């Protein structure tokens, strides 16, 4: 029997069938919502960061598994590094301490850091502003939407009762 092995780099992973993933990047805007205590807001920040860290880790592992994608995967390692950046965290905490919600704090801190990077002379460095924004978008805690909705429902329900 004749056998011939061809070597090459796969251009495509083939055909995939499955549920579609709708890529709809959230805008860096925040719902209007009353801030909790500093500890409450920072706890929400921590759990949102943990969720984002798990997301980034699974993205990293999924892309790393594909042959020759090690370098592409490393972007998600860099994003994990930004996720736990002490300077970003410090800026968020400072905003929370003056009564902002963690969402507002994160948006403000992100703008500060992103403009710092965007203002750099080198294009390669300036483009990292987009990475910071990407990471923040991933962190932005989502439960607040539900909290706000819940608060509105409760307040309208109690308004009807009175």
């Amino acid at each position: 029997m004749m056998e011939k092995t061809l070597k090459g780099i796969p251009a495509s992973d083939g055909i995939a069938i499955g549920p579609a993933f709708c890529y709809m990047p959230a805008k860096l805007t925040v719902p209007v919502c009353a801030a909790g205590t500093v500890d409450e807001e920072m706890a929400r920040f921590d759990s949102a960061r943990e969720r984002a860290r798990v997301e980034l880790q699974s993205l990293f592992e999924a892309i790393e598994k594909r042959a020759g994608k090690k370098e592409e995967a490393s972007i998600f390692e860099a994003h994990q590094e930004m996720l736990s950046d002490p300077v970003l965290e410090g800026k968020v905490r400072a905003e929370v301490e003056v009564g902002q919600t963690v969402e507002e704090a994160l948006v403000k801190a992100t703008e500060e850091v992103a403009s710092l990077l965007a203002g750099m002379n080198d294009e390669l460095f300036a483009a990292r502003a987009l990475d910071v924004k990407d990471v923040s978008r991933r962190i932005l805690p989502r439960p607040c939407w539900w909290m706000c909705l819940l608060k509105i429902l409760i307040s309208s329900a109690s308004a009807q009762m009175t």
Partner: protein
Amino acid sequence: MDAKSIIMVLTLGVMKDHQVLVKTDGIDSDAALDALKSLIENNFGERLSSLQRDE
């Protein structure tokens, strides 16, 4: 400047052939300095091929 912050390290804008001054402070400052020294001496773990591509 906090070297633990990737954002702050990025804002330094350090590129190939630049000279950097590293200062460490605290109880584990010697270990930290050694770690940074070996990191720099080992090309930050980057292979030669990826360095050449960037040039």
